[in-house]
């Protein structure tokens, strides 16, 4: 049974995402798996993390006992100060996002559709939702990478033909990296590029709610 096979863990997803970040690029990380990405930046590569809390060029998370109360990321975690940081206010922070100055954002998702629509701010019957800055990032970042588990807690596909949860942005997702696969969103639909070790293309398709085209170069998950 496909359901019982081992899947990649959250750190491995984050590691795979980190390989997508351009050297010298400005990158915004969402909450959850995306937060882990900053720990896996390719050696020799320099990525400038943007946090809508108001800091550019965020350092890694602060060590216990060395927290600076005035230096946090968007998830409220303490950061280490690093040379070359810049602080800014919230309107400027979102001008950077909306104005197309951020190269990549990495976000979690409840659903991604065949057309690259993103739903990640509200689950029906769960309060008022958590829009935060997700809608601004979906609308403004040059590339939107979704980092998530391939299926939900009931093992239902999170990659679907049409999103049934409230939409964050239409056609904004460029790449989906899950615990089973790497899938590119193209004008022609979803293209399966990489599959987790031990998994077959057919098994990934069976847990995906939209038709996947299989890349001619499909390969094992690249770390």
């Amino acid at each position: 049974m496909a359901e019982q096979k081992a899947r990649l863990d959250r750190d491995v997803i984050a590691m795979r995402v980190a390989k997508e970040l351009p050297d010298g690029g400005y990158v915004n990380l969402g909450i959850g798996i995306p937060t882990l990405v900053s720990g896996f930046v390719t050696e020799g590569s320099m990525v400038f993390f943007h946090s809508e809390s108001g800091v550019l060029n965020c350092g890694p998370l602060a060590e216990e006992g060395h927290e600076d109360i005035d230096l946090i990321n968007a998830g409220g975690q303490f950061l280490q100060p690093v040379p070359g940081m810049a602080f800014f206010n919230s309107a400027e922070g979102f001008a950077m996002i909306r104005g197309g100055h951020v190269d990549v954002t990495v976000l979690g998702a409840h659903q991604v559709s065949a057309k690259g629509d993103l739903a990640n701010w509200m689950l029906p019957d769960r309060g008022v939702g958590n829009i935060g800055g997700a809608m601004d990032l979906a609308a403004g970042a040059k590339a939107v990478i979704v980092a998530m588990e391939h299926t939900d807690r009931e093992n239902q596909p999170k990659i679907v033909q049409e999103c049934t949860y409230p939409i964050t942005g239409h056609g904004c997702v460029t790449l989906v990296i899950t615990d089973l696969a790497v899938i590119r969103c193209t004008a022609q639909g979803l293209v399966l590029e990489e599959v987790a070790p031990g998994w077959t293309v057919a098994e990934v398709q069976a847990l995906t709610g939209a038709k996947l085209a299989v890349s001619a170069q499909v390969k094992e998950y690249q770390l």
Partner: protein
Amino acid sequence: MAKGKVYPSAEQALADIFDGAVVLVGGFAGQGVPEALLEALSRQAVKDLTCICSPAMPRGRQSSGFDVARLVASGRVSKVITPLLEYPGANSVLEQQRRAGQLTVEVVPQGVLAERLRAGGAGLGGVFLPNGAGTRFEEGKETREFDGQRAVLELPIRADFALVRAQTADLFGNLIYQGDARNWGPVMAMAAAITIAQVDRVVEPGGLDPERVITPGIFVHRIIAAGGATGGR
């Protein structure tokens, strides 16, 4: 008026707040929160305040100070407008009051809130934003296309009061901040009839390098000096 901005206490700076007032509250995830002002406001005899803040709820070790959740718990607030009511799963007093029908909550994307406030502060009639096009945040709003991209008209926000936190003020109300505790201070200070800044210290004119001033004093009407756990030292 550029004079007489320093008030002896948070209570006196808030003495003319009124029922139904719209109040902007600075701070992000517990950082840069005007704790002394919020605590004083919770003791004022007012009700039905509308609180606009982002996000309302601090988390973890930053939540020790007085925050919007505690202001809401005091029963002064009937409506909150925010991008993030609470971190998922927190089940704070905010969510409890909302479920009980005591608190109205309006969710607004964070960058939309920022631009609506900036439009309010800058005297603009509104702004067209790409955020939310084709989503439920577009419902009931005018839309237009710019370079083939649909944008949604968002209206300015002007508030009665803004409560912000900065590190240092001079007597004329010029403010500097510390770290990313700056967050909402500069934009909220512009968008209210009366902006009250809680600062760690007040200096004489000349005590701040004008090249480093982030919020010019024209946006700041009242200042109180009060120390605390967050928002600069």
